[in-house]
């Protein structure tokens, strides 16, 4: 059978990605996920004052800067043994939730559902409704998302001055107190967003929808009213299942969540854990089990994997070798893992997501559905946090650390960004940053092969896939976009030089 290699360039907010796929006929038999952009953030931080990380690292990403800020400040606070008052954690959590909701809505209805408007689906029964909802700049869900995702980062601006890229989380707390005006302004944003979410996205009230707790209940709900079936999530679900997205994109069965949102008892509002896909058991998460491999990456080579505290990021660009990516290959307990809202909600124990996962596995549709489920959960949590702040208006938002500067030492900050597990590992020597290692969610999902030659999660989720039209593999766009990469795919054939674009 004829083998050929196709190349897909992915452009997204956090960087650029490219896939090289080997096809036999219509089946993907090998995949290489190529992180094609090198930026050198970790090198830029070395030698700088520790707090400068609060300014530099949010700028790693245009869509999840709050998450980087939160990771960075936790790492510095761990080094300095600095405690923060509960109101500071509440404000940090509220802002990270607002950023996540913003990202999830944009990913769902600006990036993921646009694929359903591909002319390939013109004969499908839902196609006209799909166009009406999801056609870029014209569909009602696309327009509504542009409008409403614009306002929710206003909550970050209310407490932190601006979104994106502020530095309002500082060791010891946050820079601005909760005031009645800030709380009411934020509630107003949540009220408006919730109303739109209920009317357009789920077609029903938030409370009862969050009470759905099994696959059977969800599918019965979907049939129960036209407003449910024709809501944005209804159309996304029905179209996804009509084209078989509940049977694709599984990848590795191991899932990782660092947990999210520090609570005042020293724990987290969403639990961390490692879901062992072989046993189905959820085990405690321990960051010491993380190691990064560079066997197939363009960095100075070392044997096996290294924990981020011993990690190095020394570029060694070798385009004509069998190394192929600027991404490292992180592994947990020496396993390939995936991360993101599906992992987060499964590990936290959301009953509906658990039921759907047990019924059909961790597929493309469920990954996307879990993201919107999370939006609904966060809308509720944000409201709760604002009520807590209102009840503690006079409590401190900042406690001055005993020392002005961060002392020498090492620390890490782990949280859940919109796309999944995010970690910063920092070492301070002689008052300056001596090592800074970041592992982003996309580094887990998009990792290249490791020193044992095992494919990363995205790579393995594509291998074995059959594409209808190898010259226009829209199936790949669905799978990769369900992980929230904010990308546009373009494809060209290496063997003929003929170029084409996957309809993004």
């Amino acid at each position, binding site marked *: 059978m004829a083998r050929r290699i196709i190349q897909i360039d992915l452009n997204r907010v956090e960087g650029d990605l490219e896939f090289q796929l080997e096809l036999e006929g219509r089946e993907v038999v090998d995949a290489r996920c190529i992180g094609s952009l090198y930026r050198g953030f970790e090198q830029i931080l070395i030698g700088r004052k520790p707090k*400068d990380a609060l300014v530099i690292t949010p700028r790693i990403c245009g869509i999840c800067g709050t998450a980087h800020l939160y990771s960075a400040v936790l790492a510095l606070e761990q080094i300095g043994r600095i405690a923060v008052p509960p109101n500071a954690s509440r404000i940090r959590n509220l802002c990270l939730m607002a950023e996540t909701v913003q990202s999830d809505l944009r990913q769902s209805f600006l990036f993921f559902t646009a694929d359903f408007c591909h002319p390939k689906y013109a004969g499908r029964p839902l196609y006209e409704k799909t166009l009406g909802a999801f056609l870029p700049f014209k569909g009602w869900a696309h327009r509504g998302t542009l409008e409403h995702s614009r306002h929710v980062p206003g909550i970050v*601006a209310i407490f932190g001055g601006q979104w994106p890229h502020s530095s309002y989380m500082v060791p010891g707390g946050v820079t601005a107190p909760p005031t009645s005006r800030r709380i009411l302004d934020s509630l107003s944003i949540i009220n408006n967003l919730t109303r739109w979410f209920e009317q357009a996205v789920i077609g029903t009230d938030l409370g009862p929808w969050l009470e759905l707790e099994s696959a059977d209940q969800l599918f019965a709900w979907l049939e129960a009213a036209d407003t449910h079936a024709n809501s944005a999530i209804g159309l996304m679900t029905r179209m996804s299942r009509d084209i078989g997205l509940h049977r694709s994109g599984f990848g590795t069965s191991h899932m990782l969540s660092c947990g999210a949102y520090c609570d005042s008892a020293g724990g987290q509002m969403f639990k961390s854990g490692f879901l062992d896909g072989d046993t189905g058991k959820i085990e405690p998460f321990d960051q010491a089990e993380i190691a990064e491999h560079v066997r197939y990456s363009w960095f100075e080579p070392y044997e096996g994997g290294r924990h981020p505290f011993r990690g190095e990021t020394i570029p060694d660009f070798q385009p004509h070798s069998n190394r192929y990516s600027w991404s490292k290959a992180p592994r947990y307990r020496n396993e390939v893992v995936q991360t993101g809202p599906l992992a987060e909600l499964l590990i936290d124990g959301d009953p509906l997501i658990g039921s759907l996962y047990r019924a059909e596995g961790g597929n493309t549709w469920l990954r996307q559905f879990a993201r919107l489920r999370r939006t609904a959960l966060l809308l509720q949590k944000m409201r709760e946090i604002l009520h807590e702040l209102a009840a503690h208006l006079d409590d401190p938002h900042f406690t001055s650390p005993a020392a002005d500067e961060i002392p020498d030492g090492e620390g890490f900050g782990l949280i859940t960004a919109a796309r999944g597990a995010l970690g910063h590992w920092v070492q301070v020597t002689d008052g300056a940053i001596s090592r800074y290692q970041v592992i982003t969610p996309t580094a887990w999902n998009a990792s290249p092969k490791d020193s044992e030659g095992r494919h990363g999660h995205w790579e393995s989720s594509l291998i074995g896939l059959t594409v209808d039209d190898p010259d226009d593999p829209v199936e790949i766009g669905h799978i990769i976009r369900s992980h929230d990469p904010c990308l546009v795919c373009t494809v060209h054939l290496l063997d003929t030089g003929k170029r084409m674009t996957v309809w993004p």
Partner: protein
Amino acid sequence: MSILCADSPSLEELLDQYGIDILWQPSLSSEPKGKLDALIEAILRDEQRLDILCIEGSIMTGPNGSGLYDPYRGRSKMSLVRELAEKCRYLVAMGTCAAFGGVHAAPPNPTDCTGIQFDKKLPGGLLPAEWRSRAGAPVINVSGCPAHPNAMTKTLAMLASGLPLELDHLNRPKDFFNSLVHQGCTRNEYHEYDVEDSAFGEKGCLFFNLGCQGPTTHAICNTELWNGRSSKTRAGVPCFGCTSPDFPLDQDLFRTEKIGAVPINLPLGVERANYMAYKSLAHEAAPERVLNKEMDP
């Protein structure tokens, strides 16, 4: 992502009301296959008109001058930008990275980054200082990290509707870069009477101790609020000077360097001796409500 937050005008308004047709935007475009490559080829063959070319991100010239730290289809984006630049009526650098190099060009500049027509403060980046677009304009720098959403959409609306667009010495549109971040900051009364904070989380001015560059940075942060709500300095975060060519400064970003009790970098254009005299008198004149920090910023 910043531009999606623009509300005056919004991105949708640019399409609906200003006749702007987005040929390609990597995060939003959803066109039939082959569109981007066909577009680029058509533009390079002068078959497709390119009115405004917007570039985000610094131009990576490494490793070894190849530009391959940032490739597109095996070639460098650096060379693609150079070719497209010859075809556009206007070239707009969106953000400090594209304008001046930005964070990526901070020491040790690991990827050999530059801005499009500036390398930090120095004229001439990827394109020489004398370069002009087809409409006769230099690269228009809408700097900021990120660029202010409404500064981006207003600049595009001005170009699309033919409103005059005057540029400053760094080729930034004067409408957005002729006032300082300090102007409109709600901590100004504290600054006026020399009530300066030395710890985070308080209400006073951040200029003397906490690294705030508001009095030396041109931007609209306090005259056109972020997300329609606030600004960093209002929320107690120092201005880091992110619209300036030397952002990020190669020094502690949360500490003001001083000579004696007074910052080394004074508000733009101010004489040191006069400023010292003014500040010592100012503190004497401070009313109780300012000294006691009774006002919320």
